[in-house]
């Protein structure tokens, strides 16, 4: 437990794979004039739109945090240097993780009828994991 970079990377790969699949389906169906396209299904449409929105937001906030990190003057601290921008980077990327998780898991929850207790258990595990990973990230970089 505790590798925050890996966790964010895994969420981004999952989002990339799933959004690629969604976009592949939409493109193939619209290019070949499917008579019953998947975009007619409201749950799919909502999932696709919020996934694309999340990707746009995460790109914007990653660029913003890179700017904050670049502009910060490092201060000498006990046994090393202090960079406070890392804390805001951690906070932003943890919210990206929760955003992606909420978006990706919504479709199977609705369509396959997975009980909400499963979602609650997963979100509890994720919160504990993210807190532990962030703590390690702040402490050791």
């Amino acid at each position, binding site marked *: 437990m505790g590798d925050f970079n890996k966790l964010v990377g*895994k969420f981004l*790969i*999952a989002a990339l*794979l*799933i959004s690629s*699949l*969604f976009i*592949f*389906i939409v493109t*193939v*169906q619209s290019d*070949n004039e*499917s*008579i*019953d*396209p*998947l975009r*007619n*299904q409201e*749950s*799919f449409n909502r999932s696709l739109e919020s996934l694309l929105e999340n990707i746009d937001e995460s790109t914007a906030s990653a660029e913003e945090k890179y700017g904050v990190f670049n502009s910060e003057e490092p201060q000498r601290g006990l046994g090393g240097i202090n960079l406070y921008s890392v804390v805001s980077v951690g906070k932003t990327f943890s919210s990206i993780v929760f955003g992606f998780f909420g978006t*990706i*898991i919504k*479709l*199977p929850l*609705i*369509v*396959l009828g997975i009980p909400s207790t499963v979602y609650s258990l997963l979100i509890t595990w994720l919160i504990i994991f993210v807190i532990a990973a962030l703590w390690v990230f702040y402490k050791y970089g």
Partner: protein
Amino acid sequence: MACTQLGSIEGVADFFVWPTLCNYYFYLYVFGAIFLIVAWRLFKSEEDRKGEGEMISSLGISAMATTSIGVIGTLVKNTQDVPLIQSDILLYMVAATVVFVLIWIFKD
């Protein structure tokens, strides 16, 4: 969608869509079987190459492949404009794929 007689089938597309008219979930079962066979083949080939296979990643890859083929099924339609795979059947496949991909990515 009424289940028609085999005699009223006029073309190849009609023939392939005919099971859907008789059993709405027919191709869901067919693609489920394809998914399991592909996953098992992937697992076995990886086991032969490396000595040990990963079932979870085989299931994830197989789910993505099966759903991609399923998309082609939504484009095939019979003379009454009934598609081979309805959008809600494809939605089930997509939702299951999302679950398998998530398990695959977060397995360790």
